[in-house]
């Protein structure tokens, strides 16, 4: 390609922009920005509305420090599964087996640690190894034999539930030693003191905010150097302040309860890594390409089989992570563990904007979708809503979310 100097796209003009330019350029029309990101921002708005709704309905109880900690502990494994599931869905597949795989990996870990008395980390390794093997099994049938993932993972759901029962010999195993328990129930607390609150949690929150601001600023500088449109500086600052405030408030609530949950650190690392993996790596791009148009991806030199294989291996890995967290949280392994988890993870991905036909979706969207489900279930539990009604409400929310998405797409289609 010839690389001539790009012509001026906005008022900063020159190709040798300095970081200082990042302070005073950009389009400042928030309406167009919101419209452009309706799909993404819509889901955030929905989350805020639902959080506010349940804060109101429970007289603020749902936002209390103890309850926020609870939500994190209670739904972390669903969010971990949703990360893998959204990638599977972007690739144009589905995975119905994750609940069974959560059970199987947890069971293997329990057998290694509880029945055989091995150290906790050996249990974790065994679970991850089993998860990878299960993923490779699914990947083989989907990618190399060419059987639809719906069928392969439906078979896997039965297969691995059965294996769970065999591994556990039809009984529950518990309890885990304290170290293993720490994974899902432990907190980093009191490391640097604090008066009635945990200073360490606030410090981590502060570091997270600082990291976010620095990375956003660097992105902005780079975009300006490449002459791409950016939001106005005022809007940029407003966004940083808003995100910073939300994160610090969240950290403050945690600090006032039991400190920083270890599982939250695991989750944050996974979100960060997989967010980058999907957006910034060749692998991630190829997943979107396959889901968007399979034959076109094939004719562009994408090794479709290899990519599909690794999509499922990755799902197996994350199922194992979720299996470890869940077994740690429930302090044991039960034959029925993880039942219906796949449906929660699938729902999170779709509420978060993934398309049923593949090629569309984000990790962050799936996290927000998962949080919407989490806040709803938790809020309804606090209000003492019956289990039956909870299920009805969650079903309706999933339906409405996807209907909204379909409607949006149709509108976008006809507006051309």
């Amino acid at each position, binding site marked *: 390609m010839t*690389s001539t100097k*790009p012509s001026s796209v906005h008022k900063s003009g020159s190709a040798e922009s300095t970081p200082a330019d990042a302070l005073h350029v950009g389009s400042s029309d928030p309406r167009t920005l919101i419209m452009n990101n309706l799909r993404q921002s819509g889901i955030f708005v929905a989350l805020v509305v639902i959080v506010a709704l349940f804060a109101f309905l429970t007289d603020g109880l749902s936002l209390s420090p103890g309850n926020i900690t609870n939500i994190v502990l209670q739904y972390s494994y669903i969010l971990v599964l949703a990360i893998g599931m959204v990638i599977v869905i972007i690739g144009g597949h589905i995975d119905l087996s994750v609940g069974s795989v959560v059970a199987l990996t947890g069971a293997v870990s329990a057998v290694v640690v509880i029945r055989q008395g091995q150290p906790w980390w050996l249990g974790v390794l065994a679970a991850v190894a089993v998860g990878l093997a299960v993923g490779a099994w699914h990947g083989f049938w989907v990618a190399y034999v060419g059987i639809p993932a719906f069928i392969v993972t439906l078979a896997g759901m039965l297969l691995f539930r059965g294996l769970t029962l065999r591994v556990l010999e039809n009984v529950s195993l518990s309890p885990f030693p304290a170290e293993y328990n720490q994974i899902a129930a432990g907190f980093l607390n009191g490391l640097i003191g604090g008066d009635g609150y945990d200073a360490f949690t606030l410090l981590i929150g502060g570091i997270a905010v600082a990291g976010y601001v620095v990375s956003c600023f660097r992105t902005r500088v780079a975009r300006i150097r490449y002459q791409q*449109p950016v939001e106005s500086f005022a809007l940029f600052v407003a966004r940083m302040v808003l995100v910073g405030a939300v994160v610090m408030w969240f950290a403050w609530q945690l600090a006032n309860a039991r400190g920083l949950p270890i599982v939250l650190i695991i989750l944050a690392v996974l979100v960060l890594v997989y967010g980058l993996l999907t957006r*910034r*790596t060749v692998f991630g791009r190829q997943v979107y390409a396959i889901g*968007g*148009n399979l034959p076109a991806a094939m004719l562009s030199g994408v*090794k479709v089989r290899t990519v599909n294989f690794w999509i499922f291996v990755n799902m197996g890995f994350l199922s194992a992570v979720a299996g470890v967290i869940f077994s740690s949280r429930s302090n044991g392994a039960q034959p029925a563990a993880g039942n219906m988890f796949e449906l929660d993870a699938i729902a999170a991905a779709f509420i978060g904007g993934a398309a049923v036909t593949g*090629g569309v979706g984000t990790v962050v969207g799936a996290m927000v979708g998962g949080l919407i489900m989490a806040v709803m279930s938790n809020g309804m539990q606090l209000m003492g809503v019956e289990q039956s009604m909870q299920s009805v409400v969650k079903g309706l929310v999933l339906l409405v979310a996807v209907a909204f998405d379909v409607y949006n797409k149709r509108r976008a289609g006809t507006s051309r």
Partner: protein
Amino acid sequence: MDDHILEMRRITKTFPGVAALQDVTLAVRRGEIHAICGENGAGKSTLMKVLSGVYPTGSYSGEILLDGKPVDFRGIRDSEAHGIVIIHQELALVPYLSIAENIFLGNERRGRSGLIDWNRTNAEAARLLASVGLHENPVTPVVQLGVGKQQLVEIAKALSKEVKLLILDEPTAALNDVDSAHLLNLMRRLRDQGITCIMISHKLNEITSIADSTTVLRDGRTVERLEMGSGEVTQERIIRGMVGRDLDSFYPDRVSSPGAEVLRIEDWTVRHPTQDRLVVDGASLDVRAGEVVGIAGLMGAGRTELAMSVFGRSYGRDISGRLYMHGKEIRARSVSEAIGNGIAYATEDRKRFGLNLIDDIRHNVSSAGLHRLARAGWVHDNEETRVAETSRRDMNIKAPSVLSVVGKLSGGNQQKVVLSKWLFTDPDVLILDEPTRGIDVGAKFEIYTIINQLVADGKAVIMISSELPELLGMCDRIYTLSAGRITGVLPAAEATQEKLMELMAKDKESVR
């Protein structure tokens, strides 16, 4: 005063940025065969979609008079209720249902109980099949019929709806000569029974032999209406109306100076992926730097199959033969190997095989050469945007930004995205399969200019096209392909449409 069954007056239909139809007028007399012709993108299909209600009332301006009365169609069911039935180029039959089930699909013959009356269904189907001259058992699954017979089933289906006005879009495009002749005879018989036919066709010899009158469209406008009855209207006369200018000015000038050989294909043989027959049979061809080489052939001759099998074996099985790049034999057993060896292939169906329509220009442009933008698996996304911006400017892709979704671009701009994508892989030879299909005239000229620029930069181009004037206007040499065999190669200066047609039709009897 003529008795017009149909008049369409001042029909204007616009898509964003493109006026597909402007003030188009069409008048069809009762009981005639009326041909509509025009180049690809002239607006023929759009006009028929307006007529059949695919584009409902309100999405276009102008009026439609049926039997002298204005009509508003809100959908296909509306137009069918008025006796207008359209048979599309891509047949719309359900393969695993029987002939009878297909004929009465959506229009089932029911008994008093509300259940389907199979005896009546099959008996009526048999009667309809007899009237179109198809001797098949109505319970036969459609998948077992050849394309020609499927076409007859479509017509029988239309007759079952008490059709007054039958529209056939390229009815003979996929048929061999025997089936075509049979179909044309059937159309004459239908006319004699009082059914009016509108026929869209590229085959001018068919139009001159069968049509009573012809409307010529060009660039979305009605050019003229020709009365064919006297036999004075020749194919050349119709072409003049369709093209409206000399072919010379339609193709940008290029000084041809071929250099060293880039790609040579030797003794290339490909078997059909599921059937036991050779799709490409011992084909050999070569292309040099700075040269545009054309491949001409009828539908089913194996043009696309040849190209795709060369491009990393993405079609067929039991592929044998040798490939040489710059005189050295290469292996291209996968698409990525082919790309690595400097081969690019832009597909004939960009929407299905060429583009990720739900993604933006930027990601589509980089999709075949992503590793060029990546280090250790990480994509440099700002660099990617710059590449896409450069393409947008160099190729004159009309879109607000490189973040625009490709599915919303016009055909011409989509094709420019496809070309950008392949140019980014920095190929030595580009195989362009129907590069101007479904593109309006202005964008065609731009594509031609881009191709000329590429060969001027020393690339080699293989161009597959169904439009012979395009091949004659663009190529240095033209190979003809028939039934998977290369039947000849002509320098463009010596080639004419007649000579090419003769070579393209060679060995035709052995096709089936």
